[in-house]
């Protein structure tokens, strides 16, 4: 009987002693060896926490740097597709974008090799501080690409204008009343002319802008965007006018001048 009681008592002592030791890593109230072990345990926890922070920062930085490099590469591809800017300007822009990519790769290497969190945080911060450069290229290339497309549309509309003019002249020679068609044609011409004026102004504005000037030159970029929207409206109006003339011509005496066309 006494043995059982003794065993139970020892069991309680052992359980509570273990719980106390686990919950008190600093070993307060324990002997110096236990206290030292507790301090070492705490230091290990802190080191692990710092390592986790470092790993987390590095992963986030890598993700952001990769996102930017991928997009800058896409911008280079986009830039190469633009037809109506000079080769020198295209090469200059490409060099600037490539320099950004190289800087980001260098920064990525440095971040990977950072061993203390203070330096690491500074390096990660530099991604944010260089953000304006990234943003500038994004806006500028998008504007250049859109302007280039608008310019192509304007050229195509000019050709459609010429075709419609030829058809109206034929209809007029055949004795048809083409007054309304001529008014529409004049309006198309005005819209194309205005679009071309705006396109030239946009290209002039964008050429002089540099990444170093951003965000100070942001109003100029915004002005280019406004002009571009005007170009879009002009071209849409011209397109609608062209459709109207085409439909009007279908109701005239000369239906389809396939025979007189020197096409193909």
């Amino acid at each position: 009987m006494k043995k059982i009681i003794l065993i139970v008592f020892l069991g309680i002592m052992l359980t509570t002693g273990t719980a106390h030791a686990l919950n008190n890593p600093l070993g307060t109230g324990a002997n110096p060896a236990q206290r030292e072990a507790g301090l070492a345990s705490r230091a290990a926890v802190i080191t692990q926490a710092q390592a986790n922070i470092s790993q987390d920062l590095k992963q986030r930085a890598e993700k952001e740097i990769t996102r930017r490099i991928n997009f800058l590469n896409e911008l280079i591809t986009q830039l190469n597709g633009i037809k109506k800017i000079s080769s020198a300007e295209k090469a200059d822009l490409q060099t600037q974008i490539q320099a950004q990519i190289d800087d980001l790769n260098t920064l990525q290497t440095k971040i990977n090799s950072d061993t203390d969190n203070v330096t690491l945080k500074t390096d990660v911060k530099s991604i944010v501080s260089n953000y304006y450069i990234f943003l500038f290229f994004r806006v500028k290339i998008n504007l250049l690409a859109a302007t280039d497309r608008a310019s192509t549309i304007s050229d195509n509309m000019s050709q459609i204008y010429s075709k419609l003019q030829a058809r109206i002249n034929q209809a007029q020679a055949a004795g048809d009343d083409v007054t309304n068609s001529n008014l529409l044609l004049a309006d198309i011409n005005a819209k194309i002319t205005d679009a071309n004026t705006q396109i030239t102004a946009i290209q002039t504005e964008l050429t002089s802008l540099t990444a170093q000037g951003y965000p100070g030159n942001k109003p100029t970029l915004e002005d280019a965007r406004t002009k571009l929207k005007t170009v879009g409206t002009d071209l849409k109006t011209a397109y609608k006018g062209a459709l109207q003339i085409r439909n009007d011509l279908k109701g005239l005496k000369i239906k389809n001048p396939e025979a007189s066309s020197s096409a193909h």
Partner: protein
Amino acid sequence: MDNNPVTTPPVNNPIPLQQPQVLKAKSNLGRNLVMIISAVLIVVILIATGYLLFLNNTKKSVNTQVYVQPTVPAGPTATPTPSAYQINPKDTSDNAITNDAAAVNQSLGNLDSDLSNVDQSFNDQQTNLQ
């Protein structure tokens, strides 16, 4: 002959029924004690285990709070390159004009996409890395 017969003294036999009763009472007492101590022991073990689990969960939740991964917005989309439709300037037929107009119409749609990309690039926000 001895007329005094030897009388054997009466033997005081202990009452056999009382002794087992005492022993039974002692045995129940010990068993109860063991039961009580075991119950206390189990309670102590449960409390200690519960406390340790609580501490572990607290540490984990603190760590999770520190290392929350921010959501990274999707990367911007690049503007597609202009299509390469070529207008034949000498073909003034209805069919040719219709095709030319269709090509222009498609390009105007692409121009709208370009303008949306321009707007999007102006509104792009830096990912929080801190």
